């Protein structure tokens, strides 16, 4: 029978199947960070259980870490305790940890692919919803809660109820200035924040095939923002070229075996998805969000919508509440919305290609008066690469801040936050109320739009410069 890629990967990992019970799935890789792991390690201790497969587990420090002065003690004692707790836990349970200052440290979803430890056909979990990022390689990768983190530590498996499958078919090709971030923001605006609920989404079509690995990661990263548990893209030559030669990629004979297997993972001809959604890349333009959930977005060429234009009563109420929080007036052209801060970084858009894209726009220009632009590489390796290419010089010459690796201003958990009322164009993934700091206002954008916005001081695309 013809099967989808998600079904194939699932079937390959079933440890145990019994009537009336969820399938027990084997987990190939467990990524760990400081925020969602302490209570799980503590659970192991209380129950006197060992961590079953430290060799399939890797940890880093990302959510809490400051992005400057990283060799000084962390000022916030609670954050410091959480970091120190992870260090002790990693040491006690034999887990490899890349701490602050280490060359392999970075946002957990940036370092997995970078190390080549994220590979097609794997099951990958992390106590972080953006684990869907790794699906760009054709892995089944999803975020889990702390109870499940403990479960994976103790058993290297998870009992899971089956997912439904959705195909998002993106035909055509992207115009210059339009990026994979605009694809995923358009998908979320189309199907809504609950539209993917219960599904694994597979992104397909010529526009997806044409994307680089890093651009694919941006798409899969935000699958959770459409409510989906995971997003996947079939592995192809682009995937293999990206992986070849990375520290944990197979070599020699094993590489050939692996590639042969990876080529069988793509969805079979004639396989049936539970739902299909169509999108035309030729029709896309730079997208920005205006509201307080990632589904509340619109093309930059349009205006702040009138809540009265929403037919559905709950959407109307949500739009009214969002505009009040965002302090926006219906009918205002989105291009006239002025920002205080521009943030380039995060597991969505903190990779080298994202920094190159932003640098290309900002090169030879200045960040607008009164605007603060922060560039936060997704990992120390990305930072190193960017510096080797001179991108750090481009950014600092333009008046932007050049920082160390971490989650930074994607979430209000470290010193990089917005002040109440501040407005930010952000390449991150969530525009929830207070996400970037209490009272802060977030517009989600691509790195190109972020850089152009920094120059003009209002939401802009490079074409406006």
């Amino acid at each position, binding site marked *: 029978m013809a099967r989808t890629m998600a079904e194939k990967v699932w079937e390959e990992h079933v440890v145990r199947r019994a009537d009336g019970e969820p399938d027990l799935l084997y987990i190939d890789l467990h990524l760990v960070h400081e925020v969602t792991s302490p209570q799980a390690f503590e659970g192991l201790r209380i129950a006197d259980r060992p961590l079953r497969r430290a060799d399939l587990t890797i940890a880093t420090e990302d959510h809490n870490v400051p992005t400057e002065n990283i060799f000084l003690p962390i000022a916030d004692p609670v954050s410091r305790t959480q970091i120190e707790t992870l260090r002790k836990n990693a040491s006690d349970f034999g887990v490899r940890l890349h701490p602050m200052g280490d060359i392999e440290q970075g946002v957990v979803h940036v370092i997995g692919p970078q190390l080549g430890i994220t590979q097609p056909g794997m099951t990958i979990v992390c106590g972080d919803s953006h684990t869907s990022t790794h699906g760009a390689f054709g892995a089944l990768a999803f975020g889990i809660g702390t109870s499940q983190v403990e479960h994976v530590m103790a058993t290297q*498996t998870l009992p899971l109820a089956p997912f439904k499958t959705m195909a998002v078919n993106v035909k055509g090709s992207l115009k210059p200035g339009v990026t994979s971030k605009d694809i995923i923001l358009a998908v979320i605006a189309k199907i809504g924040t609950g539209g993917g609920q219960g599904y694994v989404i597979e992104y397909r079509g010529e526009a997806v095939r044409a994307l680089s690995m890093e651009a694919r990661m941006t798409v899969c990263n935000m699958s959770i923002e459409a409510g989906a548990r995971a997003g996947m893209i079939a592995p192809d030559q682009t995937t293999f070229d990206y992986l070849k030669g990375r520290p944990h990629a197979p070599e020699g004979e*094993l590489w050939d*075996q*692996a590639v042969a297997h990876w080529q069988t993972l793509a969805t079979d001809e004639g396989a049936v998805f539970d739902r299909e959604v169509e999108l035309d890349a030729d029709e896309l333009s730079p997208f920005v969000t205006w509201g307080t959930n990632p589904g509340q977005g619109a093309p930059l060429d349009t205006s702040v919508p009138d809540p009265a234009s929403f037919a559905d009563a709950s959407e109307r109420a949500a739009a009214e509440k969002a505009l009040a929080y965002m302090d926006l007036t219906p009918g205002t052209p989105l291009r006239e919305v002025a920002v205080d801060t521009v943030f380039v970084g995060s597991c969505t858009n903190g990779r080298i290609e994202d920094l190159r894209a932003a640098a290309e726009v900002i090169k030879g220009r200045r960040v607008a008066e009164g605007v603060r632009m922060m560039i936060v590489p997704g990992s120390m390796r990305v930072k190193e690469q960017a510096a080797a290419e001179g991108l750090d010089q481009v950014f600092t010459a333009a008046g932007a801040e050049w920082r160390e690796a971490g989650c930074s201003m994607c979430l209000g958990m470290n010193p990089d936050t917005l002040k109440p009322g501040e407005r930010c164009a952000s390449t991150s993934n969530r525009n929830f109320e207070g996400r970037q700091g209490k009272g802060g206002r977030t517009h989600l954008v691509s790195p190109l739009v972020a850089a152009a916005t920094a120059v003009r001081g209002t939401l802009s695309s490079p074409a406006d410069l």
Partner: protein
Amino acid sequence: MEKFTVHTGRAVPLRYSNVDTDQIIPAVYLKRVSRSGFEDGLFAAWRAGDPDFVLNKPEYKDGTVLIAGSDFGTGSSREHAVWALQNYGFKTVLAPRFADIFRGNSLKGGLLTVVLPQESIEYLWNLVEGDPTAEVTVDLEAREVRAQGLTEPFELDDYTRWRLLEGLDDIGLTLRHVDAITEFEKQRKPWLPVTQ
């Protein structure tokens, strides 16, 4: 884990849809390494910033049943959202639809999340707004929600229901099959990466 069989209590009407876990508990409260004491973070921004927010009203302070709008628990996978609701005193949350990860977390931790039709949620909102002392019963044995003028069945798979009724820990259940795990590990693909 505490068993869940039948719970009857006062209810809190939360007339918002798309309540994400950053609202349920902002990130700044996630720095702790304990598993308790998260009640101060529950809806912290709304409780601090909006005197009319429902949890700031004295008539709802003893509520144990939260009645929310659609897509409750979207966004971040933080299980702290479940702990914050439980630490505050909630035993169950009713909504037309929940985000997947939040739902999974809640049912692992013994916070019963119940999917009801939008009309039933509207009915219950009106009921408890009209009479804050009105009680709502969530009966897991019968898979039924009951309140004055309403009896509404709900769905929950047999396995999860059994686990909640018995208060069973998932890890203990899985470790009964440790031989199957060991057997599986013998036939994993030879190229799969290891971290050390």
